[in-house]
């Protein structure tokens, strides 16, 4: 089959791509981990050379957000007397949100990885980004509103509340990652199995109405399946039946081998939003320290409402950055998917591999965050 030989070059490239991408990710995670382990104040040798501030774009973003942040107090004070200052405050909050979200935290990484692992569309990515930013702003407002405004609690009490929320949020991130790893890991191994059974590739797809008959493994179903070979559905992705164990026990069932991967539709479709919501909550639950400080400061100035609006606008800015990152992530993924679609062999394997990698990244993030190696924000108790 000369055609196949030509196409046959692709799987190798895809496989290399997969390996390279995963290796790159793992390497980055490793570097990341090491950097943070070193940065940890515990057991760090004294007098080490300080971390050199990043130059270039990141350095600029970093300098900008600090610059914006420092203007909050002046503008909040000014807003007391001057209504125009309040507008400047909201404008500042917006830009601060955009720049601040480029820094650590704000779930950019987790949301992007989640979308990549989950075959999400960019539209859903944008919605999830905005939802998580909104939740983050609301949590900050509720924490300060209840603890400081109503109960007159101390900063330490608020820090403790944030720490509890943080721990729960990180644990949730790990749970989401583990769930994805389980689902996508199975899909990956299904794709791997399929490679060793070339006959199964591109084999017939059972019509949905035959779905229930399969569990019985009767010959009728088998025959029916043989008939279906003629139809030869090209998109191996579109059918919805779940992995049945019968593929392990009968030779003829190898024809359904590819069916054992949970398909994208299972994850998107109805119910997908509910899962998306759990990711949004996990990521958005931890309020940003900057917002809390701004809210408390506004409260002390007798302008709590200005702090609330400022926090919401900040969330809007944050959402834009997170959504942009998520869109790039999803775009890259769907680009990769276009190549993979042409083949259900190595291409599929590569896609599932990327998804498994993304799930692993989520778990790594959650674990590092929970273990305290990766600190997105810190209050130091002063």
């Amino acid at each position: 089959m000369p055609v196949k030989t030509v196409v046959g070059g692709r799987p190798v490239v895809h496989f290399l791509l997969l390996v390279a991408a995963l290796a790159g990710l793992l390497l980055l995670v490793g570097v990341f981990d090491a950097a943070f382990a070193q940065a940890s104040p515990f057991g760090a040798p004294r007098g080490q050379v300080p971390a050199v501030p990043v130059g270039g774009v990141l350095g600029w973003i970093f300098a900008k957000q600090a610059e914006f942040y420092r203007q909050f107090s002046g503008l909040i004070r000014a807003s007391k007397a001057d209504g125009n200052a309040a507008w400047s405050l909201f404008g500042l909050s917006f830009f601060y949100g955009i720049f601040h979200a480029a820094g650590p935290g704000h779930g950019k990484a987790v949301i992007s990885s989640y979308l990549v692992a989950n075959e999400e569309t960019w539209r859903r990515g944008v919605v999830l980004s905005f939802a998580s930013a909104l939740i983050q702003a609301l949590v900050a407002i509720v924490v300060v509103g209840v603890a400081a405004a109503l109960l007159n609690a101390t900063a330490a009490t608020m820090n403790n509340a944030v720490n509890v929320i943080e721990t729960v949020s990180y644990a949730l991130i790990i749970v989401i990652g583990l769930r994805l790893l389980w689902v996508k890991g199975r899909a990956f191994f299904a794709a791997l199995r399929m490679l060793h059974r070339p006959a199964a590739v591109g084999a017939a797809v059972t019509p949905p109405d035959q779905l229930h008959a399969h569990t019985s493994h009767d010959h009728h179903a088998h025959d029916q399946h043989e008939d279906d070979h003629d139809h030869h559905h090209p998109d191996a992705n579109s059918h919805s039946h779940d992995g049945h164990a019968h593929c392990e026990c009968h030779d003829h069932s190898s024809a359904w081998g590819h069916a054992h991967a949970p398909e994208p539709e299972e994850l998107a479709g109805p119910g997908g939003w509910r899962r998306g919501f759990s990711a949004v909550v996990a990521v958005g639950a931890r309020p940003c320290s900057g917002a809390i400080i701004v809210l408390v400061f506004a409260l002390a100035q007798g302008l709590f409402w200005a702090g609330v609006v400022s926090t919401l606008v900040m969330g809007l800015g944050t959402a834009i950055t997170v959504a942009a990152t998520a869109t790039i992530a999803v775009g890259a993924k769907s680009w990769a998917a276009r190549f993979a679609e042409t083949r259900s062999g190595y291409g599929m394997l590569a896609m599932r591999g990327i998804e498994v990698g993304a799930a692993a990244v989520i778990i790594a993030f959650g674990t590092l965050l929970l273990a305290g190696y990766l600190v997105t924000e810190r209050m130091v108790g002063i």
Partner: protein
Amino acid sequence: MVHRQLFSIAVALGGLVIACGGACAHPHVWVTMHSELVYASDGSITGVHHAWTFDDMFSVFATQGIESKKKGEFTREELAPLAEVNVTSLKEYDFFTYAKANGKQLEFNDPPAGYYLEFDPKDTVLTLHFTLPLKKPVKAKLLTVEVYDREFFIDFSFAEKNPAKLVGAPAPCKLSVLNPDQMDASLAQQLAQLGANQRDSNLTIGSQYANKIVVKCP
């Protein structure tokens, strides 16, 4: 080639997902420092006294919910519990203070009692006063004290006026204070003064981003 593009996108994606570690953390606490180096009568340095003033937003946040007799003002006594929390938690971070005598790292004991917080009601800022005694007082020809947060959650900088002072130091000792911004210019100047093959062991490139007190005693 398409695959190469694809690969670079995958790498860029990975980078985006992971990038921006601690290096692009941004501080929520700004500290303006006044520091004093305290000397014994025999000319050895015994410790560092810091007065750290926190920025107004953080100061207001830190004093939130603390009871005071007079609204908007806090006495040292009212702030005593907070001062204790501060000093205790700063221990974990070595008080962000790193000193070297003749290039050798010095160790500090924990601050003795006597540390306190002061509240300035006009600017609504808190100032933490505390002393870091050296484990072993030393005499040094070259002494450096650096203050920085490696993770950059706290932005330290010296006050513009009277950033540092020598207390009871031998007369010939000279004090200079270097800020991260000024460091580049002064470093460049120092480097320019060096001959091509000359080395200045006093010059430690790499720590030019820290706030640094340098004392030279001939």
